[in-house]
């Protein structure tokens, strides 16, 4: 079902935890769908110097959180905003179709944290144009993508 990479990031998730006095905190998902991701960023000179996450969710939700944090660590905020869900999924050697929404959630968690950072510091990022952290990013399409044709 899951690739070895997914299982690795699920069983040994990187960057689990919280950052006290984080510069940015974002949370996405909802309990209805069974996935919640919370992300903490430490940002210095526009660069993400530390990142931690906490996730309530399935194996791939934990793995995508772990992978996404690895992928933005050390990157500039701008670069992090350009992280796409496909990139996360690819870095994990793919996800089952029914689990693609987890990678979307990971992308949104990063955006949500940076949105929080932008708000606090009164910054503008065009990548966040139209982004609403309270929107339901999870399209409730679990298990349907390949179920009907």
């Amino acid at each position, binding site marked *: 079902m899951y690739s070895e990479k997914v299982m690795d990031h699920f069983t040994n998730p990187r960057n689990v935890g919280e950052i006290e006095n984080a510069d940015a905190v974002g949370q996405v998902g*909802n309990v209805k769908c069974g996935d919640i991701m919370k992300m903490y960023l430490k940002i210095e000179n526009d660069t993400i110097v530390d990142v931690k996450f*906490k996730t*309530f969710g399935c194996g791939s939700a934990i793995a995508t959180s772990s992978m996404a944090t690895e992928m933005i660590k050390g990157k500039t905020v701008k670069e992090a905003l350009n992280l796409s869900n496909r990139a996360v999924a690819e870095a994990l050697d793919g996800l089952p179709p029914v689990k693609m929404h987890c990678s979307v959630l990971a992308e949104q968690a990063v955006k949500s944290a940076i949105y929080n950072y932008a708000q606090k510091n009164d910054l503008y990022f065009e990548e966040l144009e139209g982004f609403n952290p309270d929107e339901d990013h999870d399209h409730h399409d679990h298990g349907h993508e390949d179920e009907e044709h």
Partner: protein
Amino acid sequence: MKKRVYLDYSATTPMKKEVLDEMLPFFNVQFGNPSSIHCFGRENKAAIDKSRTTIAKTLNAGVDEIFFTGGGSESDNWAIKGVASALKNKGKHIITTEIEHHAVLHTCQFLEKEGYDVTYLKVDKYGLIDIEELKAAIRPDTILITIMYANNEIGTLQPIKEIGKIAKENKIIFHTDAVQAYGNIEMDVNELGVDLMSLSAHKVYGPKGIGLLYIRKGTKIQPIIHGGAQERRRRAGTENVPAIVGFGKAAELAYENIEEHSSRLIYLRDKLINGLTEKIPFVHLNGHPTKRLPGNVNISIEFIEGESLLLMLDMVGVACSSGSACTSGSLDPSHVLMAIGLTHETAHGSLRLTIGDYTTEEDIDYVIENLPPIVERLRQMSPLYEKVKGGN
């Protein structure tokens, strides 16, 4: 080899060796079509009849009231659509519950689209229906009551006998999905007062792909698979002789010492429930404490999600499920757990461990030892757990 503990007997069971042995000759020696006159086929009629007789005895049913099908889902579809079609001129109202298996629920939903009217009875926090609500739901055009005997997720046993009485008083056909109950508790179709009953062999150490519908003599029901004259013209298709023979053997073994089997399971079940609820905080049992399947343990573990729990358990060799195995294609929280009033997050964190004939006391101890650290690890990752810890 790594320890492997199978605790998913409600999803399916391994076939017993005696069952397989009984089936083997029918694959390539005595393989003939039972409808044939010649010796390759003729004796297979007798083998089918033997199996039918064995099973009928376990139910205290007539031999001519047992009709083999391709599984529990087909039996459920047949019971419901078959009665709906046969009685469509009498009425179009069906009563069922919110916690039925999808084979019943989705069939009812399909009939709703076809113009039938379905009442879904609510259940209490234990998963039990309210007999008064059932009585109140009955209408002059009610043609069928379909209520499951034992729930596949939380193991709750419905008061089938009482329901049967009410159905009879109101002259309404009563179907029960007894797929999970069969082989785990004693049952007598006459005492229970059921007219139709679905069973499936693979839940009782028999083969997959074979089930049956008990049809009380005189019950009005249409076939759903038309064709050849098999099963006394009520279910077409070349008889699956090896599977029917296997089902018969499995039924025989299941009811040989049902009391011992059941009390052994109850002992292990209660040990597991007590062990887990004592050792893990924020855990509670779903379903009824005593009116439940002997082998069913269903607990909610707060703040964590079921699939990641299953994966971690799998890594230490423990196989179980979160909600029904049949519904895990969809990750929506189980409709059964929602019906008994759990919140979404609690429903997502449910674990079903089902015990069977090959479960040992060591297996139970192993789970009681290995589950708590896994739960703790996942909770450490969970944003929902923060607040609780903070509050401590």
